[in-house]
């Protein structure tokens, strides 16, 4: 069985986000870029499934400009066998990414496709679910535990009400949550080895996918700030403040 893992190049989670003064976007000039942290968890899970003997090959796939090859190389260094870049000069929205992944699926015939539950830039949480819909296959989102058993997988999902368990037939799409695993650290020799692993580039139009129906993204603004509060000395003063506000 092959596993496809979708990875997205995003602003590193440690970077303090600054909205550009003209409202055209956020400042990404000279900013550190990384693999979306949820996608790293997705890749780690795929590697563990392979190491447990339940998969033969792990393929990392990213959609974007050539700069995303950097994140694909990180994925290869973590242990993926090969990489595919879906090349597109414009930023793709989830529906286009899902359509492109469907074309890759037709070529590769994977048993599992794993994504992070959301990307930490757009916070959309859509691509996996959209792919499952277009592919007419099951989805198990927000996974905190997954067990592959032959032709199916049992997935524990972190939902608002607690932990939900579903069983899905393979092939399936799984999106992963934080507590599924701790991704491994990449070691230097692995980075060297990753340079020799195959990275195929396929243009979006070669896949027959045209971008249409995009959501128009307009002005960016910093979030409204909360006003500076007061400091109190002890519990008695705290209770007074709460009573003054009618909260007790």
């Amino acid at each position, binding site marked *: 069985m092959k596993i496809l893992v979708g990875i997205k190049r995003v602003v590193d989670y440690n970077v303090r986000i600054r909205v550009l003064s003209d409202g055209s976007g956020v400042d990404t000039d000279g900013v550190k870029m990384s693999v979306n942290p949820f996608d790293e968890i997705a890749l780690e899970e795929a590697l563990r499934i392979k190491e447990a003997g339940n998969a033969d090959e792990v393929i990392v796939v990213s959609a974007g400009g050539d700069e995303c090859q950097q994140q694909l190389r990180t994925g290869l260094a973590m242990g993926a066998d090969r990489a595919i870049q879906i090349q597109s000069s414009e930023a793709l929205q989830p*529906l286009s990414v899902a359509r492109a992944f469907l074309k890759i699926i037709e070529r590769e015939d994977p048993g599992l496709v794993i994504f992070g539950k959301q990307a930490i830039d757009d916070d959309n949480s859509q691509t996996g679910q959209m792919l499952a819909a277009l592919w007419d296959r099951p989805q198990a989102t927000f996974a905190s535990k997954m067990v592959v058993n032959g032709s199916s997988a049992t997935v524990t999902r*972190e939902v608002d009400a*607690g932990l939900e368990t579903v069983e899905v037939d393979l092939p399936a799409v799984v999106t992963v949550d934080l507590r599924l695993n701790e991704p491994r650290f990449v070691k230097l020799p692995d980075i060297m080895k990753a340079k020799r692993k195959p990275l195929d580039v396929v243009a979006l139009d070669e896949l027959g996918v045209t971008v249409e129906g995009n959501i128009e993204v307009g002005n960016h603004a910093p979030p409204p700030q909360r006003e500076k509060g007061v400091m109190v000395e002890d519990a008695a003063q705290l209770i007074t403040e709460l009573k003054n506000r009618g909260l007790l």
Partner: protein
Amino acid sequence: MSRILIIAEHDGQSLNISTAKCVSCAQAIGGDIDIAVIGSGADAVAAEAAALDSVTKVIVVDAEHLEAPVAANWAAEAVALAADYSHVIGPSTTMGRDLMPRIAALAGVNQISDIMEVNGPDSFKRPIYAGNAIVDVSAPAGSTVVATVRAASWKAAGSSGGAAVEQRAASSSAATHTRYIGLESGGSERPDLQSASKVVSGGRGVGSEDGFQVIYQLADKLGAAVGASRAAVDAGYCANDMQVGQTGKIISPDLYMAFGISGAIQHVTGIKDAGTIVAVNKDSEAPIFEIADIGLAGDLFSVIADLDELLG
């Protein structure tokens, strides 16, 4: 004029409050508002939905295989209904975030996540980068708007309406590829974290599962729900469904009290819409104090003990 369909969130027994918040968002969009209750034997839910203000019609799609909110099954029904509507919206809870993109893809449109404000019928504000930027987005003219609504940004609509309830047969059969096994829930007697007016939360500073007991005790005294930071959940002090923040629950109680929480941006994202934020932390430099309305630098255990005594 817009025709808006809201996909109700419920557990078969009662309507989740996020649905009433979706109604408020739909009111801001303007137009006819219908609610779809997809489920099995969810008559009580339909009655609750029909009582929500400004709802024209509640459409009940009832079938045994629709009992659990399996996205593949619910999306098939929602898409069958969608043709009559300009907007299909649901809450950006885990249910809505699981379901709505599946509906959007089947309808062949991109989806808008987390509407926090309505600029116009097709134009909205939504947060990106964990709420560090707010962006204006517009759906392409003439296409169905499929969106999730950021519940914390909206007040629940009132319940003095009386909409018609209409039954519809399910349009699809069960997806055999997905089997719902069950839900393991904390089963707490305390108020629900997402709808509580008061929330008491603990973080890494609480130190242990035992230490977390004082958080529960204070919450019970105040009639509050209990939340936690990711650090506390990861350390095993409490259950993961209590996590508040970017990857947990985003809440907007009237009062939020944070004990031993440093205030990482991912946590702050989840509480920014709270009415009053109280922070108690022994580190007076903790970032939580930058957003707290009332701050107290001190030991959380002695502060809680004092509160306990003073509140009687």
